């Protein structure tokens, strides 16, 4: 879901979990965080379409806890 949302965006998006930061456009990297349900992750978005992306991500997180 997340990766699909980010596929067409221009911003640089990353997730940080337990002091590790990965490219959120890579499903494998996200899996690599091995963050389970209810894990707290930090999200960072830099770029033109940052606002929409954050909103989109919020929606995904709200709807489906934390499933990639």
């Amino acid at each position: 879901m997340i990766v699909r949302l980010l596929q067409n965006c221009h911003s640089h998006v990353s997730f940080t979990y337990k002091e590790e930061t990965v490219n959120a456009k890579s499903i494998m990297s996200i899996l690599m965080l091995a963050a389970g349900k209810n894990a707290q992750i930090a999200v960072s978005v830099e770029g033109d379409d940052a606002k929409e992306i954050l909103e989109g991500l919020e929606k995904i997180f709200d709807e489906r806890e934390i499933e990639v």
Partner: protein
Amino acid sequence: MSSDVEKEVRLLGISVSEGIAIGAPFLLSSVDEETPDFAISHGEVDAEIARYREAVFSSKEDLHRLQKDLEMEGSDEAMNFIETHIQMLDDPMMTVHMEGKIRERLRNTESVFQSVIHEYEHRFSERTDAFFQERLVDVMDISKRILGHLGKKEDVMLPPIPTGSIVFAEEISPSYTAAAQPAQIGAIVTNHGGGNSHAALIARSKGIPYIADVDLSRLKEIDVDQVIIDGYGGLVILNPLEETIREYQEKQSQLMTRYQKFLDNDHLESKTKDGEKIALCANVGTLRDLETFPYAHDGVGLFRTEYLFLETKEFYPSEDFQEKTYREAIEKMDGRNMVIRVFDLGGDKNPDLFLHTRREPNPILGFRGIRFLLKNQKLFTLQLRAIFKAAMHGKVSLLLPLISDIGELRESKRIIAGVQKELREEGFEVPDLPIGCMIEVPSAVMICDAIAEECDFLSLGTNDLVQYTLGVDRGNPAMSELYYPAHPSVIRMIKMIAIEAEKRGIPLTICGEIASNTLFTPLLIGLGLKEFSICTRYLPFIKETVRKWSVEEATEIAEQALKMTEPQAISDLLTKVQKRPL
């Protein structure tokens, strides 16, 4: 082998794919082979990266090929996992990240790759939930594939295995199972893996017995030269006694007799006890399917044309080539009808074709089927021209995929009529072809009265219909519990369509997995279906079932099912009547 082994050893596991096999054991070693590890110079980096890219590319090609084979076998679950693997190969982690690491570490691709994968493995092993474990299996599977290509081994998929071997492994990869030939592999036994693993699904679809969760340590303690696999009871018998072998040979021959009986009964008509003809047609995807047809059939109910030409890279097969292919197929029909479905292309099926277009966020709900053809009319008319010309040599109907709106049918008919007129003007005496619609989107079900009014036949595609109706992605393992082909909503829709088709006196065929499943046969007959189009190897099973029932009994079951509100109740009903026909 020690000759003093007197007692057979019986190991119990979980049967994940039924069947019986007797054969010699073959241990599939899962030990990682030595991976070469050496330093490279700056100058060699580009060549090393190119080698990596090539391995990834070849891996992707393997997967596309497998996917195609599996689709022809009708094994959709397997295709979906392969799609996941293809996506993983496109992941930045596998591309940009890996290439960066090669540059950074200045070591050969294999060793860099191995370390990336090991890191992955390490992370995942910290998590025990099934979700991460399944993903790890996927990652390991693709990494093996890539490493295989890096090593330039002849056959990445399968080490040479003696015919009929019983393969023992710690764990077996889905792609290994997918590539396995039932003739070569008698059965599979693993330490890990479960009924819902991809490997199990594929084994089932191929009819290879598979027992999982077996403690393989015993295998190392004794010499084993023969094994019996009882895929019904989840039993592995090492060094079976003479009498055990006889017992299982007997069981095996009973199973064989069943097939022989099917062949002997091939001349029998597909009629219910009370004499109602139920036409059994075949689903085909290649010319080879037509050639290897062991059983009698009533024509081809679904000819999926898109697979014929996937070999052609650009997917723009010429008119002549298409015409020749269709004609060859039609001529094999001996006068029976062949329903040709025009290209059902879409981003979900043929990602390569769509590299130039924008990747769709949700291809299943996207640009596919008739939508694609109406926007790519050059491709559409080319195919129609070829079909029309080939149709001069036999009986052909045209089927339009994924109709969701009456406008699509009208527009298609206009194009078809245009092509026909054009060909006649060119001097070809092309026939009129019956035009039918796939009913596989709920919107088409709701307006099927209007659709039936304007076309010549209907074809019910239950696979997509179930997924669109329930809003459940059938390829998503997390959703598999919600994927109910026997959902009351689906059963009622089928009834609706059957009523409308009958009212207008047009034929209705059912294709999709439930048509090939004997569990559903009485229900479908009871709902008013008289024509089934099925995966060829299920043909005799369906015929045998058809002959057991009368329309009256079947109608009674359908009436009960139509009153039910819970999917489980319908499943239970079908299971109950299957064992003991009314």
